[in-house]
């Protein structure tokens, strides 16, 4: 027991001594320590900045994509993500999706919890001399909100009767409200008259601000019954149909939709679908592919700089071992074992590297914050990135410090004491 206790105390005091020596050498040779760690600092800084920006992008992208319903399938003529111009032209030649398909889906999609048609057009909204151009006009039904993520701010959303009677009722997005009714309380907007492309409508409600989706403003829109939309802005436009289901029913829903649409659109069994089922997930998947590649590049760059930094540390540690040969001899004479000397130098190199990593992490996060401030990019600092930055550089210090440390430990005490 006593021996064991001795060994523990010895290991602890030797480690503490190692840390003390490392600290005193770091402080004693500040400029050199700084230059030694510069490689690590730059490497970690680069990686942390890139990772912080990618993670920031991830967060903002996922928040944006969440404005599309997570569990909604959008049936459209076009696929959201096209492979190339040829594919796009092929999709352009597809038959439009219309009422026939909508009614079939309503009849047959047993797993659906909400079904909303969507007819789109660009338009101008005016009121009492004020005008907002380039507004997205969306013709839909009462279930539209249930398929996405918007919520009503004032008034009400479209009702079934609005659709049945094709009423001139409009629900306005936040930007349209702000520009047509500057300074007006949201509640006062309800009941006001506006024109959409010159036709009279009554505002029945407004939508709370939604932000942007992939650079598209989700607040510059006006929502009206699709029945009215077809009368006022043309019934020949292709519809999209948003169909929502419980998360566990999504696959079954897609199967149902494919079956229904192929039958209604009379697609021969040997032909491919002449419609597309789009989901939010597709964006996420494509996005992850892109950022995955970015991550790969960041990690590659980081590894290369860390190796360069590691070689810098190895170089300095070799110099340090040579300079301190006599000291090593003295320590050996006083009873330090080889592994004690090894430990001492490993502690020193990993502390130097970890400090470099800490500084690099701080700088990297700073750079990411600056980029986030001056550009539209977002930045996020996760604790794991910080830990990884510091831990990884300490590992580099350990790895590249091991050869110098081994050389120090192998020194012959007699030779070392005599070294001039």
């Amino acid at each position, binding site marked *: 027991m006593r021996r064991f206790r001795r060994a523990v105390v010895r290991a602890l005091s030797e480690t503490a001594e190692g840390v003390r020596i490392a600290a005193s050498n770091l402080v004693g040779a500040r400029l050199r320590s700084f230059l030694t760690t510069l490689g690590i600092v730059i490497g970690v800084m680069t990686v942390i900045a890139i990772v912080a920006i990618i993670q920031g992008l991830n967060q903002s992208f996922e928040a944006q994509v969440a404005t599309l319903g997570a569990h909604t399938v959008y049936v459209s003529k076009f696929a959201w993500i096209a492979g190339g111009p040829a594919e796009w032209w092929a999709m352009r030649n597809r038959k439009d999706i219309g009422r026939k398909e909508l009614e079939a889906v309503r009849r047959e999609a047993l797993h659906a919890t909400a079904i909303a048609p969507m007819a789109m057009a660009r338009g101008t909204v005016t009121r009492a001399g004020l005008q907002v151009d380039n507004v997205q006009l969306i013709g839909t039904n009462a279930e539209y909100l249930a398929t996405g993520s918007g919520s009503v701010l004032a008034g009400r959303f479209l009702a079934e009767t609005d659709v049945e009677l094709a009423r001139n009722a409009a629900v306005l997005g936040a930007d349209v409200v702000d520009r047509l009714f500057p300074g007006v309380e949201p509640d006062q907007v309800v009941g006001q008259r506006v024109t959409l492309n010159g036709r009279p409508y009554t505002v029945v409600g407004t939508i709370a601000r939604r932000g942007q989706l992939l650079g598209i403003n989700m607040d510059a829109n006006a929502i009206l019954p699709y029945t009215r939309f077809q009368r006022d802005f043309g019934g020949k436009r292709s519809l999209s149909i948003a169909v929502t289901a419980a998360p566990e029913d999504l696959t079954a829903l897609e199967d149902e939709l494919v079956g229904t649409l192929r039958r209604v659109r009379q697609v021969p069994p040997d032909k491919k679908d002449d419609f597309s089922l789009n989901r939010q997930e597709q964006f996420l998947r494509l996005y992850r592919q892109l950022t995955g590649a970015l991550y790969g590049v960041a990690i590659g760059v980081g590894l290369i700089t860390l190796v360069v930094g590691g070689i810098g540390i190895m170089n300095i540690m070799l110099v340090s071992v040579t300079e301190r040969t006599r000291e090593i001899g003295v320590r050996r004479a*006083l009873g330090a074992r080889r592994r004690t000397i090894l430990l001492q130098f490993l502690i020193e190199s990993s502390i130097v590297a970890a400090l470099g990593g800490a500084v690099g992490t701080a700088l990297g996060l700073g750079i990411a914050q600056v980029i986030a401030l001056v550009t539209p990019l977002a930045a996020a600092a996760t604790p794991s990135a910080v830990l990884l930055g510091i831990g990884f550089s300490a590992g580099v210090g350990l790895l590249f410090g091991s050869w110098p440390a081994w050389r120090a430990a192998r020194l012959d005490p007699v030779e070392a004491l005599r070294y001039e």
Partner: protein
Amino acid sequence: MSDSASLIVVEELHRHYVVGGEEVRALDGVSFTIDRGEFVAIVGQSGSGKSTLMNLLGCLDTPTRGTYRLNGSDVEHLTDDALADLRNREIGFVFQTFQLLPRATALANVELPLVYRGVSRRERRARAEAALEAVGLTHRLHHRPNELSGGQRQRVAIARALVGEPSILLADEPTGNLDSATGEEIVRLFEELNERGHTIILVTHEPHLAARCPRAIKLSDGRVVGDGAGSEVALVGARVVHA
């Protein structure tokens, strides 16, 4: 069996080096014993083998042939780790150039052997202070070597050698880098320590210094050429300046 009672038993010790393809016999069959409490000078001119002998006695090196028993341990069979532990426990080194760690305080320098022994921080501190007191340096605990005079540095080194209560103090030309007055103080300190019971081996090339020791072992060309009272052995063949 007087051997087992002796602190140091050296028998037929050889240490050969190969330099430039040629074998150099730095030590060529050296035998002697040293008992506890002795004050022995190992004297000889440079190249006589005394440094090699000191390295062997200090367990820094192992012999090519022969046996060396220190306080019951057969040194020639020990592993590198065991040698390190033995040095830590049994040997207190005092070097010509002091060999203090420049960035550490006197106290930290003296504590060092105890760090490698696994002595707790508090006990280390207390023992180091006591050792510094024993060499008369109570007022210099927190000075660094470059803030101390040569004599004070050597006192710190002696305190460091004493702190682990080793069986032997092994001093290699301890006065070589000091002026004669300070050197004299250090020699007196050794004499005092010997009176208090410490075994001291003093390696020197100076006959005068060796002559002051109760016993001297004289080396020449790797062999013992004299072993007896310091005043007799050391000055034989040396230029003696009578006052």
